[in-house]
């Protein structure tokens, strides 16, 4: 926990507060005003967009006005197609995220704990990250079919690496002293995992999860770009193919909402699991 630097007049101010109630907090909680910052900034961005569209600097087909995007989005909602495409993408995202994060976690754990695994696997895992999906698209489609499986795999591939690196980082950052404590208590590997490694590595793990959750959305979309007939990525491609810029933007906004949702879940997990970080 950090303490704000005292400001002039603060002490006497605090004095009077305490006089009234001796059990006041040392650090009074702030108001909830900060929650308005992001929406306020959003309104600003929206206004900027609107001005740009109105200025005539760009043709309406390149920078369409927010209103036309809103209309298009509403149409998508009404005819149910937004829900359908979002559901498809969401399924790919969730499956890909779960598979990718799980694989990264276990491999990362293995690598962090086992030098042989580290020396053997690391170069190949790094190399794998540099393989463009399109280059292996034919194999992916032949092996996993043109259905959801290939998209899930692509998403999992994208999600894998940040989680892997942060897992290794997190597990390696655990203080030796606490490991010694667990050893002196004859903790089993499983107990060490649950009672020491997981909680100690958690902050860094969740950092990795945040990156992965955000990337997973793009992962599914990349998969849909390779081949798809439904999903938000398909919708974007379709919009581009029919020069329907409002549709493209509406789909992109839906995607970003998905990413924010997943990121928000990770942040919520962080807040719940790491409440000890700001206690005391």
């Amino acid at each position, binding site marked *: 926990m950090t303490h704000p630097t005292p400001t002039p007049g603060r002490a006497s101010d605090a004095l009077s507060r305490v006089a009234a109630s001796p059990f006041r907090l040392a650090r009074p909680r702030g108001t909830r005003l900060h929650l308005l910052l992001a929406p306020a900034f959003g309104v600003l961005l929206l206004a900027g967009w609107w001005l740009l569209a109105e200025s005539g600097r760009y043709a*309406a087909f390149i920078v369409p006005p927010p209103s036309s995007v809103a209309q298009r989005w509403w149409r998508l909602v009404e005819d149910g197609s937004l829900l359908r495409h979002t559901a498809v993408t969401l399924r790919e995202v969730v499956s890909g995220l779960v598979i990718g994060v799980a694989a990264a976690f276990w491999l990362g754990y293995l690598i962090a704990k086992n030098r042989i695994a580290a020396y053997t696997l690391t170069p190949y895992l790094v190399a794998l990250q540099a393989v463009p999906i399109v280059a292996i698209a034919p194999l992916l489609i032949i092996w996993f079919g043109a259905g959801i499986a290939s998209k899930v795999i692509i998403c999992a591939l994208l999600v894998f690496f940040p989680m892997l690196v942060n897992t290794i980082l997190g597990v390696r950052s655990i203080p030796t002293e606490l490991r010694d404590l667990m050893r002196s208590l004859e903790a089993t590997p499983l107990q060490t995992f649950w009672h020491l490694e997981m909680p100690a590595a958690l902050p860094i793990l969740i950092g990795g999860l945040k990156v992965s959750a955000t990337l997973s959305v793009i992962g599914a979309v990349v998969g849909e770009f390779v*081949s798809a007939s439904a999903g938000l990525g398909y919708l974007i491609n379709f919009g581009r193919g029919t020069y329907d810029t409002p549709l493209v933007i509406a789909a992109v906004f839906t995607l970003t909402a998905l990413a924010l949702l997943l990121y928000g879940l990770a942040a919520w997990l962080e807040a719940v699991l790491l409440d000890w970080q700001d206690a005391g």
Partner: protein
Amino acid sequence: AYLRAREPEPAPMTPVTLFMSYIPSVQFAHVYVAAERGYFADEGIDIHFENGFNEADGVERLASGDLKFGLISGEQVILARAQGRPVVYVYEWYEHYPVGIVAPQGSGIVAPSDLAGKVVGIPGPQGASYTGLRALLKAGGLTEDDLAELRSIGFTAPENVCEGAVDASVVYVANEPLTIEQQCFPVDVMRAADYAPLVANGLVTNEQIIREQPDLVRGMVRAIDRGVADVIADPDAAFQIAVEKYVPDLPAEQYATQRQVLDNSIALWDSTGGLTTLDKWQTTQDLLIEMGLLAAPLDDLAACFDMRFLPERDG
């Protein structure tokens, strides 16, 4: 003999970037030849080529004025204009729509009606491939629902056909059937162009250029047309120019194949001087409407193309 309106004094060279929505390829031999033989320079054009990989990107940039010219598929012009993009088709390069459906020889898929109950691969339900497919289905009296499955496979048709993952697949007829035949087995190809006259690739610019720089448009059209004529007249020389200077990454062992690709392409080209006709556009528009890609007919379909810049040419 070419009629040239030479200006009194040589004007400064105008830099022009020509957008092509594919990798450098012998299929673009005509512009390579035109560049190599100075046809662009003759028009006062300092030509540059840009290889993009998405036609829609190119059209957007043409419409916004970021690009002046591109080799673009005709139905894209209709779709783009429907959404307010002021792009115009000024020269027909492909007379025949380059999309078709390929199936292993002996599988009995030789005509559109044979597709009923089959699994057909397609890059995705959009773009030129989809247009070609729909034209063929229509010719066979089928709808998508008559297929066992229309499977989106991206640009992996040869792999999927060779592996037998699909019964047939939508392809670009100039090169993909060739690949399958060389790598796997003989195939039958049905060309969309044989069943429906659709507008195919041509030179596209925008209304502002036409308004403000008509001479530039005329120059581009003329240079490209000379290139087309040269390639048709002497494909071997054109091929040589293309592979030596413009497609340097092509290895020699691919020359034979690519030479065949060039021939296949030329067979689709417009040998008549770049003229397109309204009925092709009409057919294409009808198909697009039927496909649901176009909500309603364009107010002025004829505005999609502008044939005023075509040079006179001896057949």
